[in-house]
């Protein structure tokens, strides 16, 4: 497959692995966080950990939009979908996320709610146009990558005067979450968790560019390498981070030059700014309230804001108290440290956010990596 196979070449991988092993100083260890679930998935699916020396470890960050969506918001979407006049549309991987009492969108659909999976916001618009008698609500989630398509749909809906289309916005922001992790007591004050650098999500940076990361590199003295999602991209980014750490540098580097520019996609940024504004605070599953970390629809588009059209009170719903997702997302713990992992919490019956999507740290480890756990820590699927 052209433009794909080149970035998955096993021979080049072995060369990069050798280069990383040579560059890594055996007298120290390196702990890097890949923020994005796309990277977590790539690391697990291609077995990248097997190609890294023992003193280079990856910490799986919170950049999985499905995982960080709080239960209260899933509950609200389900309540919305159960209204007889509403057709709720969303992306596929949200369907299985359990809300309170284990009820997911799939379950609500089975019980009669009109919930459909779409691949793009334009499909959502098409459905609204072809079914004018239905109140079509798009359940929007995602980081900066999926925000421009939602903004575009809202603008098109407004231009077309679509009276039956609204968006339930749950779009969140990457830099705010990284700040939150770096500000967390374990990382900043207690020093119990050391993060030596970040792999930044390339798809997010195709939109926002690399400049928003300059702040972390300077303020927290952490190197950031914005990297693509193919396994060779990840390997190369790790080599670049190791080199920066060795050199005592902490700057933002762009590994994904084939698509990312420092300033990002200005058109997309303009479209988003026209339609969305910052929320003062937003709850993240696993991280709690994070200030200025999400987007809501501007008053000029209030007619297309599901939160305005429908009464959707937000009722926070706590995770299982034994769930260690928060600690796992901040790099304090690993999936196998959680006593729910693999016992009551599996991809079939996820208890916490990290198990709900294939991009979550726990789900990725369960699905792809648990054979590496020491024999005593292995637990069998029922």
């Amino acid at each position, binding site marked *: *497959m052209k433009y*794909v196979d080149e970035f*998955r070449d*096993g021979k080049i*991988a*072995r060369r990069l*692995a050798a280069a990383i092993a040579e560059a890594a100083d055996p007298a120290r260890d390196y702990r890097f966080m890949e923020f994005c679930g*796309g990277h977590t*998935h790539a690391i*697990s*699916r*291609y*077995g*990248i*950990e*097997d*190609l890294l020396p023992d003193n280079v470890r990856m910490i799986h960050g919170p950049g999985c*939009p*499905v995982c960080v969506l709080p239960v209260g918001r899933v509950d609200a979407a389900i309540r919305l979908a159960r209204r007889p006049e509403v057709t709720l549309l969303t*992306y*596929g*991987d*949200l*369907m*299985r996320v359990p809300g309170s009492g284990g009820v997911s969108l*799939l379950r609500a659909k089975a019980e009669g709610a009109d919930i*459909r*999976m*779409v*691949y793009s916001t334009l*499909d959502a618009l098409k459905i609204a146009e072809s079914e004018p008698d239905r109140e079509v609500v798009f359940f929007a*989630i*995602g*980081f900066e*990558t*999926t925000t421009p398509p939602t903004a575009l749909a809202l603008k098109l809906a407004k231009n077309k005067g679509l009276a039956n289309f609204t968006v339930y916005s749950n779009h969140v922001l990457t830099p705010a979450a990284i700040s939150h992790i770096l500000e967390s007591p374990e990382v900043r004050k207690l020093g119990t968790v050391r993060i030596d650098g970040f792999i930044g999500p390339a*798809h997010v940076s195709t939109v926002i560019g690399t400049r928003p990361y300059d702040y972390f590199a300077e303020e927290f003295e952490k190197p950031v390498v914005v990297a693509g999602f193919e*396994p060779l991209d990840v390997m190369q980014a790790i080599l670049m981070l190791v080199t920066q750490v060795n050199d005592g540098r902490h700057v933002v580097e762009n590994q994904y030059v084939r698509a990312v520019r420092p300033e990002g996609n200005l058109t997309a940024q303009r479209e988003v700014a026209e339609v969305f504004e910052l929320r003062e605070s937003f709850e993240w599953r696993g991280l709690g309230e994070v200030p200025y970390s999400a987007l809501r629809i501007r008053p000029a588009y209030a007619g297309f804001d599901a939160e305005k059209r429908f009464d959707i009170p937000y009722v926070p719903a706590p995770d299982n108290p034994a769930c260690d997702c928060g600690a796992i997302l901040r790099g304090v713990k690993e999936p196998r440290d959680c006593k729910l992992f693999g016992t009551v919490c*599996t*991809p*079939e019956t996820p208890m916490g956010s990290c198990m709900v*999507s*294939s*991009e979550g740290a726990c789900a990725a480890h*369960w*699905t*792809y*990596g*648990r*054979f*590496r756990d020491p024999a005593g820590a*292995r637990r*069998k*699927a029922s």
Partner: protein
Amino acid sequence: MKANNRKLDLKSGRVELSHGSGGRAMAKLVGELFHAAFANAELLKGNDQAAFSVEAGRMVMSTDGYVVTPLFFPGGNIGDLAVNGTVNDVAMAGATPLWLSAAFVIEEGLPLADLKAIVDAMAEAARTAGVAIVTGDTKVVERGKADGVFITTTGVGVVPDGLALSADRARPGDVVILSGTIGDHGIAVMSKRENLSFETAIVSDSMALNGLVAAMVAAGGDAIRVMRDPTRGGLAATLNELAESSRVGIVVEEEAIPIRAEVAAACELLGLDPLYVANEGKLVAIVAPDKAEAVLAAMQADSAGRDAAIVGRVVEDDHHFVQMTTAFGGGRMVDWLSGDQLPRIC
């Protein structure tokens, strides 16, 4: 009374509730459509059951319901699928499939032309596989109570002497052989789904495998521990089922698994893992190491197994994990599919 003598309107007619109510309309549908297409002596006797003589030995029986959406997809339709799928389930025992039954649950309003195309495809598939559809049933349900047509087929076959293939027979050291490319059927069907149509030249691999199985049995006999066709849940589900039943582990090599470039590309776009995508004309065989090459050669000599390859081996593993060495050079698990395989968003 004249109207009753009219033939079925196969061009623009539709299935009505009366076609399933046991009266003249039903007799007409059964006679003009099913009997005409499936024509064989046993069926044409018009009995409520089929009778056949059997030789001494072991027989196998398998049943399967078919509910595919859409009914017609590139490379086939629900009709040939319903024949090939059950023929294959019978053949996986190493058996020669001989007889099929077919039960139809038809939604009121289905165009008769569609039903005819489906029935013709079944007849053609049965001819190709060398089996006879000897008994059947037709029901019509109100609009909305079914999705076009559901078909259930049951197959009966005979097993050659000395064969006792079973999922619990895989042993460490055995070799895992796959008969061809994975994911063709699932991607072909998905390409025609509502809200998801994309242009592709991929066609379903729906095909009867009893010829291939006969060639394999001739080459490997009882050294073939088990065969299974990786349909729903794909190759991953089949390997996990076999590992679990035999209480062993399986290690596969990603590079060895045949996959068409178009299927790999479609999976890439849709965020699917081809290991979990359905197949309808492929089989996995676990074979004792000393006969593996002979079985592989027999498979490659058959058109249904042209792309057959050794893709892995059976190992000892108390956890009964299926693991894969990735083409990239790392290792990963190939776990059971959890829920439906849903596309990822970004």
